[in-house]
């Protein structure tokens, strides 16, 4: 339990959480999916497909009446429930190295401990591992490791990296061919359901609607004060779109509800909803690069909102798709559009493109600076971030700062270090403001 500035009642970080209606809606959606995954344990007719968030093919998966399972989501949900420390150590006891990705180890550890998911129910074993190898090399080894344990079917979609910052027709054709020749036949074999392209088109129509609304929500952060936090709040906002729900009517309904809430806050001139209620005074507007820490999410977020810092744009909310430049799933060109979606995810962009995106965020959202939360176990994000930070400082003249944590390994969250750095950073922003005003 912590005391907030000696002026408010003590706050129990674990319990006293305020949630929007949309957040509760999402919770129910997630609960429903875990229920399906649990029911599939004893029902051989229900087929389960494991896949990853970046470059996920949810619209396609939905065409086969299978249940999707996202190991990254399990890991981060488990991290918020303080379970991942034990999972990671379990995986290390079975030979995984201390240096490697903790998402992988959390997943392998959870599996070794009975594959009981964040909902408390067992998650069914995979009938198919759909390895969407997009923007992260580790994905490939991760699903090889799962396949080694489950001995189940695996199908792999290799999504080429945008080394030159563009999507070429060669890349797109390669992905489309894999979809036609490998991925769709594998899903047909697993599910026994014949592929229906019209069903895919219909799912993509839902996706496009949801994507419109997601972009509209995220762009409200251009308001002052920002009605949303695009990092800590953002992870909830992107949740349905990045996982098992994109392409479904319930996903669109979620974004309708979210829009109503956010729009109401815009009209009322309110700040974002934090776990302790609406943030009162916006003092710092930040752009954040890198994933958050999930093991101490509430504590981490509190370090921001206690200081009046709001994140107005973040790169993490683009790992499951970059929509702000106009990309939408296109029902008229379904497979090509799926390819473009995969190719365009944030970590599949090259460093110059990522740098430019963050620079634009600082300018477009009138941010005070850039904060990088560098994740120990995510080389895809982290390698090159120090250069990106220097480049953005140089280009925008805005101060930048760097903190280091991990996604799901509690051993790498040092509360006092992070807090000290953030406090210094906020002082730096103040000094910059004062010197600019003088």
């Amino acid at each position, binding site marked *: 339990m912590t005391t907030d500035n000696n002026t408010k009642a003590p706050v129990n970080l674990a319990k006293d959480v305020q949630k929007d209606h949309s957040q509760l809606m999402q919770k129910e959606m997630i609960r429903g999916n875990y229920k399906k995954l649990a029911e599939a344990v004893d029902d051989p007719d229900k087929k389960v497909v494991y896949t990853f968030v970046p470059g996920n093919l949810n619209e396609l998966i939905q065409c086969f009446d299978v249940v999707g399972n996202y190991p990254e989501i399990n890991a981060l949900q488990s991290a918020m429930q303080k379970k991942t420390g034990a999972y990671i150590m379990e995986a290390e006891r079975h030979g*995984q*190295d201390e*240096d*490697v990705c903790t998402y992988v180890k959390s997943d392998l550890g959870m599996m070794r401990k009975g594959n009981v998911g964040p909902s408390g129910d067992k998650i069914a074993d995979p009938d198919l591992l759909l390895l969407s190898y997009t923007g992260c090399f*580790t994905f490939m080894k991760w699903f*090889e490791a799962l396949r080694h344990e489950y001995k189940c079917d695996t199908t792999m979609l290799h999504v080429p990296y945008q*080394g030159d910052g563009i999507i070429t027709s060669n*890349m797109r054709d*390669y992905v489309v*061919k894999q979809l036609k020749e490998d991925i769709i036949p594998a899903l047909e074999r697993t599910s026994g359901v014949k592929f229906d392209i019209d069903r895919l088109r219909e799912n993509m129509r839902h996706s496009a609607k949801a994507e419109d609304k997601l972009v509209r929500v995220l762009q409200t952060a251009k308001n002052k004060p920002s009605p949303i936090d695009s990092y800590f709040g953002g992870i909830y906002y992107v949740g349905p779109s990045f996982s098992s729900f994109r392409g479904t009517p319930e996903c669109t309904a979620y974004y309708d509800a979210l829009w109503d809430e956010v729009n109401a806050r815009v009209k009322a001139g309110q700040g974002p909803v934090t776990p302790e209620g609406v943030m009162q005074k916006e003092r710092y507007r930040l752009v954040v690069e890198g994933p958050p820490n999930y093991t101490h999410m509430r504590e981490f977020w509190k370090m921001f909102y206690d200081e009046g810092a709001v994140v107005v744009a973040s790169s993490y909310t683009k790992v499951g798709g970059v929509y702000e430049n106009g990309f939408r799933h296109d029902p008229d060109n379904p497979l090509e559009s799926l390819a473009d979606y995969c190719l365009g995810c944030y970590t599949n962009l090259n460093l110059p493109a990522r740098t430019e995106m963050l620079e634009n965020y600082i300018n477009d959202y009138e941010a005070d600076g850039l904060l990088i939360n560098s994740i120990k176990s995510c080389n895809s994000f982290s390698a090159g971030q120090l250069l990106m930070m220097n480049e953005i400082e140089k280009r925008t003249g805005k101060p930048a700062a760097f903190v280091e944590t991990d996604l799901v390994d509690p051993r790498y969250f040092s509360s006092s270090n992070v807090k000290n750095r953030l406090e210094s950073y906020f002082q730096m922003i103040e000094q910059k403001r004062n010197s600019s005003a003088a």
Partner: protein
Amino acid sequence: MSKTTQIIERCLALYEDLDFTAARQWKDAEQGRHVIGFLPIYIPRELIHAAGMLPLGIYGGGDQMEVIQGDAFYQSYICRIPRSTMELSLTGRLDFVDGMLFPSICDVIRNLSGVWKLTQPDTYVRYVDVPQNYDKDIGGKFYIQEMRELMEGLEGISGRKITDEALLESIKLYNINRDLLRELYRLRAVVPWNIPVSEVYLLMRAGQVLPVEEHNEMLEEYLQAVSAVDKPRRDNVKVVLNGMFCEQPPLNLIRSIELAGCYVVDDDFILVNRWLRENVLETGDPLQNLSDAFLEHSTRTSATYEPCEELKGSQLLEAVRKSGAEGVIFAAPSFCDPALLEKPMLEDVLNKNGIPNVSFKYAENTGQMQPIREQAGTFADSIKLWS
């Protein structure tokens, strides 16, 4: 001084020369010559050669270079090769290089291509993607087009078209190189006491800075000379090394393994030299041939996807059986995601096949050899006593 010693001393000088004098001299010898740097793990060097250029393998700074500026680019939990490669760049040691290629191997090397683009905006930089799909009509077509785009980039630097004839000629030369290296590895597996692992390693490294023609001559001379060598056979065990395909171990570490009682009879050093396990066809469409060879005869490493679970680790098993090895030493660089994530799966395959194995980590600047010597020595003793 024996012929083999002379050759290895030359190789050692090339290895220790972090100014890449030999490559600079090659470039300066004729106007219009260009040098293209590349990082591990695999590049179709034939394309660079056919463009009249020198492919230059960049393997970090080893244990001889102090990394100062490069450290500012990377967090402590990222491996050492990108920071020492940056140091090479920032200290002007690569200022004669006309282009840099970053192969598909891991997220760190992938992102290094972007770091290079941002810090060296006037240099030709290309991330070289290779297919993880090995179907000719899918991955093959993609790869051929990727090679075409790379060729266009090289032609832009050299100002000269890469013809099919030139490319087939380059394929021939690299096939000779592959033949010679296969023979070297075959012979080493038979008489490892005559061909120390450090010599094999230095010969492999020399091929990264010399033109292939010169490397071929060197290998021929070495193979001829080494046939006359007759060193005493020690009571060592035969081992395969695995995991050293990117960031390189210090030479002393390689020597230490042998000194500790292990004859290394196969390894994954400098894999670009041996990536294609069979030769490339020397007639017909050269890009198609290079693509077919890649799809059908690539080395399986942790940087590649294994589509078939039953084949996981099969090449390592084959290496053990073919070389007569009695065990495997996994030696991976710290923070190397591909090697370290692959290791538990390979260990499992070896354990199921009753092949002893041990593992340790290193960095390119590891200085303390005693723990590694003790570990390798204990491993060798355990094989001798109980296997």
